């Protein structure tokens, strides 16, 4: 073990390099004892991943950024409850998913950015340009799926969870999860065909 493997003001590159479990352990220990710099290092290590998850689930950059912040603030508050049963990043991931789900519940069904859609309809954002042709931006298409379908599609086809795991993460029933997945795929396939 090197002595200088964690520096308090930590660049993303250095954060990415401190992969060893013992280093994460130390950072978590210090964060639990109140060290914000240690928690910053944990943030730098996990931010891109958490942001990717939040962005895909939320379908909107502003909401995603808000959820990323909420995720880390919640994690900071709940650090006492993290005893290392899972990897820190897994624990953070669950908080992120819960955070986005919670955000939607708070916002309710009607919202400025996300409108409920009929089968086959697509949401349109301000300034959206029409498709450029054969090459579809899959990420953009996913972001335009209706909320329920998007959640399940991201967790299942992008993140690789099974339906029972999705049920546990989100509270959606397994049957509903399957239905939403099929709906999402159908919508995306129609898009791909165009």
């Amino acid at each position, binding site marked *: *073990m090197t*002595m*200088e*493997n*964690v*520096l*308090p*003001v930590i660049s993303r590159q250095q954060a990415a390099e401190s992969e060893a*479990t*013992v280093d994460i*352990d*130390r950072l*978590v*220990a*210090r964060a*639990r*004892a*109140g*060290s*914000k*710099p*240690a*928690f*910053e290092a944990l*943030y*730098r290590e996990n*931010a*891109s*991943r958490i*942001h*990717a998850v939040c*962005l*895909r689930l939320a379908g909107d*950059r502003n909401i*995603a*950024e808000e959820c*990323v*912040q909420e995720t*880390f*603030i919640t994690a*900071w*508050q709940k*650090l*006492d409850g993290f*005893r*290392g*049963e899972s990897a820190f990043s897994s624990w953070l991931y669950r908080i992120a998913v819960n955070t986005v789900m919670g955000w939607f519940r708070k916002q309710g069904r009607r919202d400025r950015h996300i409108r409920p859609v009929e089968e086959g309809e697509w949401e349109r954002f301000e300034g959206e340009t029409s498709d450029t042709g054969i090459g579809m931006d*899959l*990420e953009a298409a*996913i972001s335009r799926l209706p909320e329920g379908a998007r959640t399940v599609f991201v967790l299942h*086809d*992008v993140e*690789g969870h099974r339906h029972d795991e999705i049920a546990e993460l989100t509270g959606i029933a397994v049957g509903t999860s399957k239905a939403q*997945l*099929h709906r999402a*795929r159908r919508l*995306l*396939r129609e898009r*791909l*065909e165009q």
Partner: protein
Amino acid sequence: MNCETFNDRLDDWLDDELKATDARALQVHAAECPACHAQMTIARRLQREAFALPMTNEPARDLWPEIAARLEPRGMQGNRKWLHALAASVAVVAVFAGGMLASRVLLQGDADIAPRLVERSQQTELPSLADARRILPASYVELIDAAAPANASGTEQALLRNLLLVNLAIRDIETAMSEDPANADLRELLTGLYAQENRILAQAERMRAARPAPVRTTI
């Protein structure tokens, strides 16, 4: 199989949830029906591309400053109470008589001048064993529990409490360094503390390795 059934079953097929006979039937239909074959191709492509999407996505801007601003100070109950009590009675302490008077200012909270420091009283108290068990990561506690038998005259306590002491000191220096990153003196102290932590963990590791296995073994 007809095209309608094919479409109904395509998703289950993608997720390997079809019985072998149904799966076979689906593939046979796809071989014979160009429209459905196209559907299958698109479906598989979508599945592949979705799974291949990047796991990470850098936020457009650094969110840390906003997060940091919203983090409430954490810390041990005992430590905070003690510091507050000290702050209530002593704002500026004149340390030395007969010679240079050095004033030491007790700081607390997230004052933007300087970080909260573990101030030394007459005799610094070691953190309690309860706090050590609570705050140190589970892997540290497990290592030391495995290394020091319960009857080893307080060794387990000494290891855990000192390990937390070192980690709290690391926290305090990291806090100080976050506001003065170029401070080489602090960095020197921090390096020393990492060495101290390593020493404690290495000792525990050696002790654990030297203990007889808990399960009865035949030699």
